[in-house]
């Protein structure tokens, strides 16, 4: 069993929430009726999640004051791109926050959203190293997209105009259903893989964190949405709790390839 | 590998003066910084932060290390020659000496732990006294106070009993440095004392080899490469003599067949061409069965036997009248067809050799077993041949002066009346001193330490000095030992760590590690000699055994002049030098002990023992029939002796672990990384019967006591045996001596003074907790 890596849990979930918020925001602006009604509040919540997440990430480093040197390896390292991406995303978010009344607001939102999606891709690559066979593939990206959409939609409900609520509810419901399917199927598929992959499947299935994330973060919210057909204020908090548990399981319960050296792979 | 580069940058200094204790333990950052400072920085152009190619010799070995020669003084076949690299008065790292073809540049998992050992945070630093044995209530005292307490007790015993027979010594193989015999010397210098003599290690086999050939004398292990057939019988070289394995491999590469005969599928067994899983303690039967077939098939070397032995006809008659291959098969569990095939292979391979392990003879019939196997080697004409021989051990390279050992009793000392020869496997003292003729030390069986402490009277054993030994971890029947210690009025232990015996002592004295003392080391297996230099100042207040003796003598003579003849001030280096003599110089082809500072030296001995076929027996020949054996209570011929009767459900085997040497090493934090906890190994069939799963906590128990530990299922152990490795884990009560009793083996008294002990003739049951 690895460690929970709490700083990384917080960083990834919260920054992905921020990205999701901007993406949903941008989609809403394009899809919704007429010119966008964006206010500082919507950027503010993005900044809140983003800055909290980035602050948490410093606690992960042995030498946080040298964090800026992590931009050095754009030639090969996805982690450098992740840092670049999240930094540019931060700059654009700040830009958006200050330019919210300007006429290029929608453009900035879109650009920020695109950078955010790219950053999601960089994160997906970063957290899919060869050392963890079960997730050395597109799965982290899939998990992160789901995180971004779930929490982006959920927390958008806090700040979006009420006219957007039904639209948000629909997206959230669909994403929850996709999430339930993905999170139930994936460990099952792992069970038929090699030793480290199969062990990951069994560890996830035996993990209260995993079942917590499914129950609290996916099934329960689905049930609520099915009943109420709206996003109550406390719902995204529940989903966030589920996401945090799920991310903790992702770090703690995914089995490293080196754990099985000496046994059949 | 280019050693010359190394030498150019080395300086060797002698630390002659005994000064203040050493400096802070090494931290790795400093070490790495040192490496970097030594060479990297000089190489780097600004802005380019790494060296692509460093100049040879500039880094790591650049000039700053002092090198010293050391040797591992443990009870191990390999007795490695060590090269020690010191900087800033701290041991930075060590390597095996490359000059020794036996050590060949590498040590073992235990030896490399020496780099940590002097600096281990739990090392005993000062003399300490314990208020209440076993309480852990330790208080630091000065050397003066410790010595006063001890001296006063010694004088009290002297006054009460009129002799020092109430003071006993428990010492064996924790440190085989030649100057460490100064402990025995110290005891002699105090008076006539009680000595726990004999050896738990190899006594039955020593007697057997003495009865057969007149001495224990093995070939140079490096000549094993010349064998065409090698049987490793009851010994696990891969764990207990790792440096010998390369010779077995080389013999194998040259076409020799390697056979391992052992009740367990040991690591050595896994590397054999053929492994025989024999029923424990039936090795004598198997050997005799082989001998019978070799006799019938007329494959024995008749010429050799006629020219060099006596008693073969009687042996042949015995075989014909009492031994059959089928019987041997039934006794040993080995199929008759295999016995026949191997006997023929062994007899026709020239030369063939058998390496008799020490576990082989730790049985009630151990001596008889060794005699039977010796007979196999002799009747096939393999004794006295390069690549041949019945290999067991030797002491041919141990002819030192024993200056530290040979001290005189004080004037007027009394002991056991009459001259008794104190014998032991490593007792080299001649000592035909007229003054010593009227009294002698009292010799008691070291293998029954607990029992003799309980039983001995007139006078009873009041005080125990423990050095180079750990009775609670190494001696048998631990529960009895606890009772025995209750009788002791004072226990003084000299050691480096708070092990089980220290925990049950009144006073502990901190002793030096190999890096902190001067001594000499020979091997009982290979033919090399090493010097052991003081590489660092003794840490904290540690003293070597002879320094402790001198310190005690000082206090003794202050309290009562003349009560101890040990010199009160000694120069350790001088005492090391005093052990050398011309015989040693000639044997090793060196002009002075200083030659050894350049590396170990090898004895100029013929590689084959008994090459001149002049045996040390009364007849001067190999004695299949030995009257001497008969005089000592055994059969004259190597007849079969039955194994010990089983007194519990399963046989219990407690051999050594590769990670430790008895109670040394496994307790170090470096060792804990790789070997953190003990297990008991049982066969899956036995486990199934008892509903035990891998990882369950179980107890192993018999009439002596019990052990609780975690079970591992394994097929290396037969289904009717339980396997636990003997070791001391820090902060762990695991101790196999809880279930091992002190039953004697059949031989040992002749040459080593006491019978041996049947360590592997133990039985127990196991149950889930």
């Amino acid at each position: 069993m690895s460690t929970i890596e709490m700083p990384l849990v917080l960083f990834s979930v919260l920054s992905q929430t921020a990205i999701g918020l901007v993406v949903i925001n941008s989609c809403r602006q394009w899809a919704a009726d007429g010119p966008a009604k964006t206010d500082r509040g919507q950027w503010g919540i993005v900044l809140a999640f983003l800055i909290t997440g980035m602050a948490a990430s410093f606690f992960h480093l042995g030498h946080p004051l040298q964090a800026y040197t992590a931009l050095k390896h754009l030639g090969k390292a996805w982690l450098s791109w992740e840092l670049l991406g999240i930094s540019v995303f931060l700059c654009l978010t700040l830009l958006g926050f200050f330019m919210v009344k300007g006429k290029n607001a929608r453009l900035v939102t879109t650009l920020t959203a695109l950078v955010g999606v790219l950053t999601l891709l960089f994160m997906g690559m970063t957290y899919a190293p060869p050392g963890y066979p079960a997730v050395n593939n597109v799965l982290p990206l899939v998990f992160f997209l789901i995180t971004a959409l779930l929490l982006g939609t959920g927390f958008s409900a806090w700040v979006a105009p009420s006219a957007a609520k039904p639209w948000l509810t629909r997206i959230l419901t669909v994403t929850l259903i996709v999430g339930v399917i993905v999170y139930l199927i994936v460990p099952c598929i792992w069970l038929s893989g090699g030793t480290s992959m199969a062990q990951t499947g069994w560890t996830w299935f035996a993990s209260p964190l995993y079942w917590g994330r499914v129950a609290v973060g996916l099934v329960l919210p689905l049930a609520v949405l099915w009943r109420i057909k709206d996003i109550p204020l406390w719902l995204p908090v529940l989903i966030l709790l589920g996401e945090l548990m799920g991310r903790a399981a992702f770090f703690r319960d995914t089995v490293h390839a080196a754990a099985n050296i000496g046994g059949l792979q | 590998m280019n050693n010359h580069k190394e030498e150019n940058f080395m300086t060797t200094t002698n630390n002659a003066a005994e000064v203040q204790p050493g400096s802070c333990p090494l931290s790795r950052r400093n070490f790495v910084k040192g490496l970097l400072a030594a060479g990297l920085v000089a190489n780097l152009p600004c802005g380019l932060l790494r060296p692509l190619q460093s100049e040879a010799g500039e880094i790591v070995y650049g000039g700053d290390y002092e090198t010293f020669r050391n040797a591992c003084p443990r009870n191990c076949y390999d007795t490695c020659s060590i090269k020690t690299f010191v900087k800033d008065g701290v041991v930075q790292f060590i390597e095996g000496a490359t000059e020794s073809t036996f050590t060949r540049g590498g040590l073992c998992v235990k030896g490399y732990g020496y780099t940590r050992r002097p600096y281990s945070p739990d090392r005993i630093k000062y003399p300490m006294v314990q208020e209440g044995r076993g309480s852990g209530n330790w208080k630091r005292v000065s050397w003066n106070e410790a010595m006063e307490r001890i001296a006063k007790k010694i004088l009290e015993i002297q006054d009460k009993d009129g002799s020092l027979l109430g003071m006993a010594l428990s010492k064996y193989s924790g440190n085989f440095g030649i100057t460490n015999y100064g402990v025995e010397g110290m005891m002699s210098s105090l008076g006539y004392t009680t000595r726990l003599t004999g050896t738990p290690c190899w006594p039955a086999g020593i007697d057997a080899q003495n009865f057969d050939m007149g001495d224990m004398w093995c070939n140079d292990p490096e000549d094993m490469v010349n064998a065409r057939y090698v049987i490793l019988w009851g010994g696990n070289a891969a764990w207990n003599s790792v440096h010998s394995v390369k010779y077995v491999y080389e013999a194998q590469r040259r076409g020799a067949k390697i056979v391992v005969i052992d009740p367990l599928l040991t690591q050595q067994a896994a590397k054999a061409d053929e492994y025989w899983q024999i029923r424990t303690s039936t090795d004598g039967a198997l050997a005799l069965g082989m001998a019978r077939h070799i006799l019938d098939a007329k494959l024995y070397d008749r010429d050799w036997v006629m020219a060099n032995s006596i008693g073969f006809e009687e042996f042949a008659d015995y075989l014909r009248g009492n031994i059959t291959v089928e019987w041997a098969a039934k006794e040993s569990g080995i199929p008759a067809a295999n016995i026949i095939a191997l006997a023929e292979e062994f007899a026709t391979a020239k030369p063939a050799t058998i390496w008799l392990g020490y576990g082989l003879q730790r049985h009630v019939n151990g001596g008889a077993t060794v005699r039977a196997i010796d007979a196999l080697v002799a009747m096939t004409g393999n004794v006295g041949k390069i690549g041949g021989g019945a290999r067991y051990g030797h002491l041919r390279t141990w002819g030192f002066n024993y200056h530290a050992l040979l001290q005189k009793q004080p004037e007027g000392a009394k002991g056991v009346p009459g001259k008794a020869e104190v014998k032991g496997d490593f007792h080299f003292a001649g000592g035909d001193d007229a003054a010593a003729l009227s009294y002698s030390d009292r010799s008691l069986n070291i293998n029954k330490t607990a029992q003799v402490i309980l039983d001995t009277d007139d006078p009873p054993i009041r005080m125990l000095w423990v050095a180079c030994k750990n009775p609670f971890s190494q001696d048998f029947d631990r529960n009895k030992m606890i009772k025995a210690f209750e009788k002791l009025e004072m226990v003084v232990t000299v050691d480096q760590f708070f092990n089980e015996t220290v925990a049950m002592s009144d006073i502990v004295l901190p002793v030096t590690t190999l890096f902190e003392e001067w001594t000499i080391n020979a091997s009982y297996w290979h033919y090399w000699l090493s010097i052991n230099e003081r590489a660092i100042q003794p840490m904290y207040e540690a003293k070597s055994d002879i320094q402790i003796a001198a310190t005690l003598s000082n206090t003794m003579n202050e309290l009562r002049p003349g009560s101890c003849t040990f010199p009160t001030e000694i120069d350790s280096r001088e005492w090391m030098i005093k052990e050398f003599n011309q015989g040693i110089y000639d044997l090793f082809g060196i002009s002075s002990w200083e030659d050894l500072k350049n590396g170990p030296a090898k004895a100029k001995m013929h590689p084959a023992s008994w090459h001149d076929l002049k045996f040390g027996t009364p007849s001067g020949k190999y004695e299949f029939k030995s009257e001497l054996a008969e005089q000592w209570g055994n059969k004259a011929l190597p007849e079969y002796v039955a194994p010990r009767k089983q007194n519990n459900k399963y046989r219990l085997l407690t051999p050594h672990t590769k990670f430790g040497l008895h109670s040394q090493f496994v307790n170090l934090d470096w060792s804990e990384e790789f070997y953190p906890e003990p297990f008991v190994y049982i066969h899956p069939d036995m486990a199934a019967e008892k509903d035990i799963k891998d990882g369950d906590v179980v107890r192993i128990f018999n009439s002596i006591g019990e052990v609780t530990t975690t079970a591992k299922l394994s097929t290396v152990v037969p289904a009717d045996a339980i396997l636990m490795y003997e070791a001391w884990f820090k902060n762990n009560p695991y101790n196999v001596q809880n279930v091992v009793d002190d039953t004697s083996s059949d031989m040992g008294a002749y040459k080593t003074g006491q019978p041996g002990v049947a360590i592997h003739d133990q039985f127990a049951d196991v149950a889930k907790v």
Partner: protein
Amino acid sequence: MKKQYAFFIDAERCIGCFTCAMACKNQYHQPEKVIWRQVYPLDEEIYPYTERAFYSLACNHCENPTCLNVCPVKAYYKREDGVVVHEQEKCIGCGNCIRSCPYGAPRYNPEVKKAEKCSFCWQRIDAGLKPQCVQSCPVEALQIVDLATFDKPGAVQYPPGFPKYPKLNPSVRFVLPRLPKIIGREDI
């Protein structure tokens, strides 16, 4: 082929004595749990007797090392002779290499809060000496070879029990352990 130093692990000769593991610790004094070289026993599924066959593994100095690839501060570089060096001064302790290497070579050193791994004793190599682990092996089961010229018959790169990552192309070669002919007891 370009020069590539590699470890050759002769599991047939290896007696699992852990000398190599402790020799490394003796040279570099790593703190607890920061193990550069580990000796892995083979499962019963691979070698049917427990703790009787082993692979001694450290860093495999891969041809395409993932540690080097994923390190955001370029703290790793690969030498001309193939050795992959970690420059600890540059490391910020992000743990990416530790998570990335499927062989578990880099470890986190909590005292300096940085990663570190087997250096192939490159300073010793440059001084004309063998790595400490290689020199220490009593049976020459662990050797340093150059893959450009290595041609031991029967050697493999991915024996059972060793993770297969052709994209990384670890610079190690193995000879598999063998079983003796076993004569068991007839009475049990």
